[in-house]
């Protein structure tokens, strides 16, 4: 409770004016008057006038309930990754900040006496801390620096903010601060945000700059959309400071390992080169550029850069190779040509050493239009340009067969797709079993080698696996599970352990596999064990079966996501440390999907959860992910006894702007001080007690009592007596002066 003198009727200004006039008048009169009588008259007049003035001012004693509130001062400490940069004196910026709080402990205590102090660490979000915690270096892992947004978040909970102190390396990446630092025209939204700041912002930066030695890679560019199986070139630029020109190497990695490397010598502190990358599978890829590290660098975080590359499919490039021209080849070719999304490159052996009881037939090559078969290009040097290779009743050339087989195996291992269609000439019927391809074939040779295909009118049906398989969904929908017959099947041994038999042909009690698929490395293989499937296309009532089978098979082989029953996408390909991620999961309604996120560098699982999928799609939000680097999302679900899997990748990394600015000498955050009336000063120079901060805020909560002083009868009596006395004194004085 407090009591104050209160003048409800008039302001202090009017009181001052009246008092001043009165005193002036008195002084003039005294100067003119010589006698005591005049002085007495003057005093009476002053009392009378004073009484009238008092009555006019209506003074009262006011008793009120008030609250005196300290202004809030927000202290924000930069926790972004750039604070890990080592300064020229050997301490990191984070260390320097901790030392600053220790050295200015008593100053902060004084401030806490006068203000309501709140401490925060900030990067791309804020968290509350105590001053004691700030005396220990923060772990600077924040992915970006946005001091202004952090300040807005911090001040949101407080009504009366008297000022802000931002302790930072001064390198802010966000648009508003950068624009302020350059004094360039700000967007209307930025101007509104700035107007909402009605207190001074003081910016304190470390006194020393970054250590002189640094080797930095510029950010990766041109990785947004890459075409599958088209060579991509990545520009790499390395800048060195604080050291003479030196030799170095730049390496490019994807998830599988090193893809390219270039070495050279810096010139004028710069080394520029181009690295190549052939993306072989569609979807997201993680690319990483690295260069050498040296002890004593300001930071080693910018010696590597990572980026997400989105590899999209070009037209499906299919290599269709057949051992001879045939109806099976002809109808498959027609199917492939009618697909608008397919680019077809065909090679068919049109002539071989003709069988003859009298020996080989000699041809005059000038008569024919035949060209040499480009085995080296097709199976080795150009094979990586294909998405899918179809070998239709085709045996690799006898000369150098192992070399060509190695090319095909490597192609599949690296993500290529292989469809092997059997016939009279393959799988041991005409020549020995192709053991050079054993690594990738999902079938083993038969126990007893035959030289003929199995001939009968086979009933064809889907196996249990085939019924569940996404490959045959379209076939099942359009045709059902009982399919048109086939008249010839290749005899084989057992399927290999990881193979899936999707279709079988039955004749009597015997069942023979017809369609088998498997994974090998990053690629896929399918074997179709008949050469008469073309009849399904030739008979129009069965054409749907033929096309549906091939549609599903090709989608599976080239990893078209539409062929997968379970799909997962990380909504944001790149997040900063500590952010959450959203996973978009598509699965069969009613299934339970398990998801985990694994850090690919440490191989640790950083998040796990499971959901029941009700609709077609579900969004799962993760906990904040603190670990840095590439992360894989892996989902699994049981669907009718089959384990489905889907995966995606994303990056947890500071922003490129943050990494670019780690050793920058151009400070942007001090511009916030300039535009809000604050100070921008170094840690060595700052005097905390001189920082301008708004004073306490006094708030009157309630007026409990107002006791007027002026309407007391004594005041009236004094005024009357003074007026009467003045009148009497004036009369007497007049008489005296007249006599």
């Amino acid at each position: 409770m407090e009591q104050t003198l209160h003048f409800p009727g008039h302001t202090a200004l009017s009181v001052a004016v009246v008092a001043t006039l009165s005193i002036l008048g008195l002084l003039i009169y005294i100067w003119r008057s010589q006698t005591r009588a005049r002085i007495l008259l003057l005093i009476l007049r002053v009392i009378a006038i004073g009484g009238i003035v008092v009555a006019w001012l209506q003074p009262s004693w006011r008793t009120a309930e008030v609250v005196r509130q300290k202004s809030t001062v927000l202290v924000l400490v930069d926790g972004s990754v750039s604070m890990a940069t080592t300064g020229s004196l050997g301490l990191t910026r984070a260390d320097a900040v901790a030392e600053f709080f220790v050295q200015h402990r008593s100053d902060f205590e004084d401030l806490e006496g006068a203000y309501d102090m709140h401490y925060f660490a900030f990067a791309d979000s804020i968290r509350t801390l105590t001053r004691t915690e700030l005396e220990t270096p923060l772990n600077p892992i924040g992915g970006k620096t946005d001091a202004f947004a952090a300040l807005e978040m911090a001040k949101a909970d407080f009504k009366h903010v008297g000022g802000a102190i931002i302790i930072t390396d001064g390198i802010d990446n966000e648009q508003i601060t950068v624009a302020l630092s350059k004094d360039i025209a700000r967007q209307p939204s930025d101007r509104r945000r700035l107007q909402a700041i009605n207190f001074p912002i003081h910016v304190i930066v470390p006194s020393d700059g970054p250590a002189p030695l640094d080797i930095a890679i510029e950010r990766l560019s041109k990785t947004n959309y890459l075409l599958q199986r088209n060579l991509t070139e990545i520009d790499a630029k390395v800048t060195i400071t604080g050291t003479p020109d030196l030799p170095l190497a730049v390496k490019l990695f994807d998830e599988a390992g090193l893809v390219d490397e270039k070495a050279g010598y810096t010139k004028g502190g710069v080394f520029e080169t181009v690295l190549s990358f052939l993306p072989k599978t569609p979807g997201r890829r993680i690319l990483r550029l690295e260069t050498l590290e040296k002890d004593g660098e300001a930071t080693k975080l910018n010696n590597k850069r990572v980026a997400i590359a989105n590899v999209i499919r070009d037209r499906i490039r299919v290599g269709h190779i057949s051992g001879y021209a045939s109806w099976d080849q002809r109808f498959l070719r027609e199917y492939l040509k009618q697909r608008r999304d397919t680019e077809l490159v065909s090679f068919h052996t049109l002539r071989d050493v003709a069988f003859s009881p009298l020996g080989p037939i000699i041809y005059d090559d000038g008569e024919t239009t035949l060209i040499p078969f480009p085995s080296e290009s097709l199976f080795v040097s150009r094979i990586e340009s294909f998405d899918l290779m179809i070998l239709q009743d085709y045996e690799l050339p006898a000369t150098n067969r192992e070399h060509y087989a190695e090319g095909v195996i490597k192609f599949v291992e690296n993500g290529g797709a292989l469809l092997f269609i059997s016939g009279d000439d393959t799988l041991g019927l005409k020549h020995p079993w192709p053991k050079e391809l054993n690594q990738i074939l999902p079938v083993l040779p038969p126990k007893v080698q035959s030289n003929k295909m199995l001939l009968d009118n086979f009933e064809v049906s889907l196996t249990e696996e085939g019924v569940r398989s996404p490959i045959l969904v379209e076939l099942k929908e359009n045709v059902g599970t009982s399919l048109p017959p086939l008249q010839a099947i290749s005899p084989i041994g057992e399927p290999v352990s990881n193979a899936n038999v999707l279709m079988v042909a039955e004749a009597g009690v015997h069942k023979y596999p017809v369609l088998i698929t498997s994974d090998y490395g990053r690629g896929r293989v399918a074997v179709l064990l008949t050469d008469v499937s073309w009849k399904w296309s030739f008979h129009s009532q069965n054409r749907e079966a033929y096309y549906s089978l091939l549609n599903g098979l090709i989608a599976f082989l080239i990893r078209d996501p539409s062929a997968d029953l379970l799909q997962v996408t990380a909504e944001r390909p790149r997040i900063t440390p500590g952010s959450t991620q959203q996973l978009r999961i598509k699965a069969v309604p009613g299934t339970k999907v398990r998801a985990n996120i694994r850090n690919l560098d440490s191989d640790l699982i950083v998040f796990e959860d499971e959901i029941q999928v009700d609709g077609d799609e579900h969004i799962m939000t993760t906990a904040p992910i603190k670990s840095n680097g590439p992360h894989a999302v892996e989902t699994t679900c049981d669907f009718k006894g089959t384990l489905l899997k889907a995966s995606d990748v994303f990056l947890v990394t500071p922003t490129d702007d943050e990494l670019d600015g780690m050793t920058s000498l151009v400070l942007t955050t001090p511009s916030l001080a300039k535009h809000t009336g604050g100070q921008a000063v170094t840690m060595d120079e700052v005097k905390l007690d001189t920082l301008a901060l708004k004073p306490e805020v006094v708030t009157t909560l309630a007026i409990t009592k107002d006791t007027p002083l002026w309407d007391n009868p004594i005041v009236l009596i004094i005024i009357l007596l003074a007026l009467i006395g003045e009148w009497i004194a004036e009369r007497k004085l007049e008489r005296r002066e007249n006599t």
Partner: protein
Amino acid sequence: MLTSRFLKYNVMALTVLLTGLSAPQKANASEGNRFLVMQITVNNQQPVNPSAGSVLAQEVRFRSAVLVRLDRTVISLELPEVLDYPFWLWVGNEGFSKLNDTERKNLKTFIQNGGFLLIDNAGEGFGAAQFERAIRQELATSFPNAPLQQISSDHVLFRSFYEVSSVNGRRAKRNYLEGITIDGRLAVVYSHNDLTGAFAKDAVGEWQFEALPGGPKQREDAIKLGINIVMYALLLDYKDEQAHIEMLLNKRRINPKEPMPNRIIELDD
């Protein structure tokens, strides 16, 4: 050289014919992927040049990598089994009545399904003219939107295996072929020159007819044309692509040493 080659062919042909051929039989479904010439008959007519189909198949086998069936297969256009094989040979040397509904339906279904029909006018004089009139009428009725037209000399058919510059058969009446194209595919080829007469052999394996006026050279040209027709039926426009094969093989840049390709990226609507 030509003579020794022909001698060699004839010996081989005799060997294979004696060991492989049998009486005309129904199509054997167990060798479904092998090339077979199915000769069709209409109006219960007798087949003309019935050995030509198997001789053509055998020449294909000797000269290329195609696996063939040497069965001499003749079948009525009315029977449902006629739709089992995609290569028909229709040889006529006289007029015929309009096809009945079943025959016409089979013909249309065959072509729509992707089948290939080689028509050969083996007639002479009045017989040839009658067949010509009947066949043109029938094709116009069955395929009213796809008229019979001269096949251009730069059509891929003339380069599908051999470089063929002359069009003849046992005779050399007209130096062109005619054909019907359906959905960009040559589905019917019509020869005026008794092409099958150049292949036909008698029971002991001798050429049945002389090729006039060019003799053995003309016959060899006719055989090459026949092989090209078969190769076209099996490969369609494959040989057109082969002309650009270097460009196709190197279209995608996968090696830094390769030059940047000129690409026009087509965007789907």
